[in-house]
């Protein structure tokens, strides 16, 4: 077949058109450039705005949005704006999974910030692991998880308890009563607590769990009254915390003789139970609203001017806030074409910043966070009085209660 001049030109033009229009298209689709298209970086924001846990998750949502707005107002990340895609999973784990899938596959978000409860984190985990995406989880939780697709910025049991438990034993005594809501988080925390107590020669006189959302604590209060424990170690969550404290107070028990030591009572719950019911009890957490640092002052002021002067910040909203800034630092190190969940994960390993609670760092092996646990005693004005701060940041050890297991870069190691 003879190749005519006209035909030749037609052919080259067609081929050229394909190269110009078609190839880059395919090329974009395959590379990570799509994650940062049009001067925007899309991230998902996945906190419940309706349903039972919306009470807390709303504040996490607000802290996340505040941080994103701050980053954008300061010029974004290498000139690119963060675009939050907000979904409401309605406090339902199945909806969490569905919305996560939508954010990762439909919207092609490069990372997602979300979840408060462990149940919702467990529900979205398969989505992020299968799609090799990245999930930023701000809540203190029970540990015992080792995923390469989650960045954990909340405390794990060793960070909240290592200083807290011996301090309480020394101050109040060795007869402990453990009470929690009936699900995995309190059980794992108590599991670790019992190990620590055994180590310090203290005894557990009662370990008890109430149904989630329980609000009738009169029998529990009677038990405290008759058994007189030195310390009541509480991992009751949500509105049950409020009911427990109020009924403890109404029952005439004295926090000076048998204080409740909690891992879950924050400014949020205290505002709802009233300062008089909360006064005298203790909480261990990496962050309190009253913590005195320039970064925290800035955070509290920004939060209040954005969302209302009566709003409180607490130990879950603070990580929700700083993890966005950590995300920004990690992405900043990458070229626009290199931005992908995988490169962000690699870039965020060992990343440090001065958060409102102090200088935090992502542990490169287990992707949890070095934090600054503090002990606070609640006052009748509804704020905490800081009694003790660790002298060093505490390393996150998500498998501390299981000495033969360690979370490493390549996954969970059994020995």
């Amino acid at each position, binding site marked *: 077949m003879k190749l005519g001049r006209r035909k030749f030109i037609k052919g080259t033009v067609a081929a050229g058109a394909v190269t110009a229009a078609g190839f880059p298209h395919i090329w974009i689709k395959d590379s990570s450039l799509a994650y940062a298209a049009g001067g925007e970086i899309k991230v998902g924001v996945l906190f419940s*705005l*309706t*349903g*039972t846990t*919306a*009470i807390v998750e*709303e504040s996490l949502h607000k802290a996340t949005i505040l941080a994103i707005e701050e980053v954008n107002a300061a010029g974004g990340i290498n000139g690119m704006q963060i675009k939050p895609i907000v979904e409401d999973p309605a406090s339902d784990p199945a909806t969490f999974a569905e919305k996560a899938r939508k954010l990762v596959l439909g919207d092609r978000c490069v990372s997602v910030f979300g979840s408060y409860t462990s149940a919702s984190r467990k529900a979205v985990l398969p989505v992020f692991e299968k799609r090799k995406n990245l999930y930023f989880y701000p809540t203190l939780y029970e540990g015992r998880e080792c995923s390469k697709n989650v960045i954990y910025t909340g405390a794990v049991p060793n960070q909240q308890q290592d200083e807290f438990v011996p301090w309480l034993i020394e101050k109040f005594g060795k007869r402990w009563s453990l009470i929690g809501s*009936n699900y995995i988080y309190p059980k794992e925390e108590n599991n670790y607590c019992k190990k620590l107590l055994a180590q310090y020669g203290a005894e557990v006189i009662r370990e*008890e*769990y*109430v*149904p989630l*959302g*329980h*609000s*009738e604590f*009169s*029998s*529990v209060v*009677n*038990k405290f*009254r*008759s058994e007189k424990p030195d310390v009541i170690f509480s991992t009751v969550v949500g*509105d049950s915390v*409020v*009911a427990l404290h*109020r*009924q403890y*107070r*109404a*029952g*005439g028990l004295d926090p000076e003789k048998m204080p409740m030591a909690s891992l879950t009572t924050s400014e*949020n*719950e205290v*505002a*709802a*139970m*009233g300062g*008089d019911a909360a006064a005298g009890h203790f909480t261990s957490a990496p962050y309190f609203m009253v913590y005195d640092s320039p970064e925290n002052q800035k955070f509290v002021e920004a939060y209040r001017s954005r969302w209302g002067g009566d709003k409180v910040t607490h130990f879950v909203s603070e990580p929700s806030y700083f993890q966005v800034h950590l995300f920004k630092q990690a992405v900043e190190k990458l070229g626009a074409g290199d931005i992908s969940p995988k490169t962000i994960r690699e870039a965020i390993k060992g990343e440090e910043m001065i958060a409102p609670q102090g200088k935090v760092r992502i542990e490169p092996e287990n992707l949890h966070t070095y934090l600054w646990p503090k002990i606070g005693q609640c006052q009748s004005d509804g704020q905490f009085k800081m009694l003790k701060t660790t002298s060093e940041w505490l390393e996150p050890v998500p498998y501390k209660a299981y000495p033969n297991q360690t979370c490493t870069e390549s996954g969970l190691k059994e020995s």
Partner: protein
Amino acid sequence: METILAQILTGLSIASILLLVALGLAIIYGTTGVINLAHGEFVMIGAYTAWALQTYVGVGLIESLVVIFFTVALFGWIIEKTVIRHLYRRPLDTILATWGIGVMAQQAIRLAVGGELRYVQMPSAMSSSVSILGIEISAFRLFILALSAVIFGFTWYLMYRTSIGMKLRAISQDREIASCFGIQSKRIYGLTFAYGAGLAGLAGALVSPLKSVSPEMGTTYVVDAFMVVVLGGVESLIGTVASSVILGELTGFLAFYSNDTLAKVLVFLAIVVLIRFRPQGLFAAKVRS
């Protein structure tokens, strides 16, 4: 001995809260036959009214109880006039409709005042505990106990000693015949619904200083209230009291000697077994259907 006495008192305290919540439900169901799934939201609205009055008007809980009763009663009356009225001959649809009203009420509150837990102050005179026969008990719980007895007495009087109560009982026995005697069932239904809602509102206001106030708080109460009504038998005021006391004491003792999780399971189990053998409840009044 002291422990047992303390536990009996605790059981009575639980029972008084159950009674407050269930009484309105029992009256509405007994009279109109409507299974009111929005009852928990009436409780919730009562608690929020108490919160609003305290926060924005500065009125204490005790002083605002009357206002709360009439506010929630008005809300109930409006619901009856606008929605329930059209559904009396379709009992299944009332379940769906009242459930929908409940969901809407929750979200309306969330949109209006936000989803945070709210704080209602306990009257300062009752914020500590008192000692009776050597037993420490919360003064506010005693107050609830006393008040629920008063409210029950008043309701009983209303039902059995006034003409409106007589009309109401006549309607619940046979609506057609009662109409033939000139009783305006529409008006009575509206008032019943309002009264039941008002009682639920009071319950919400009274528990708010002991528990927490949130848009979803009603859901747990409505389950408990149904337990009471199912166990006691509908249309029986005495049955409602008796089953409140039984459930309160049972829950209290089981929770004390085991734990609250197990107590809940055992109580539910007992009720399931009971309705298997006595579906009409313990104290069913004989009514022609």
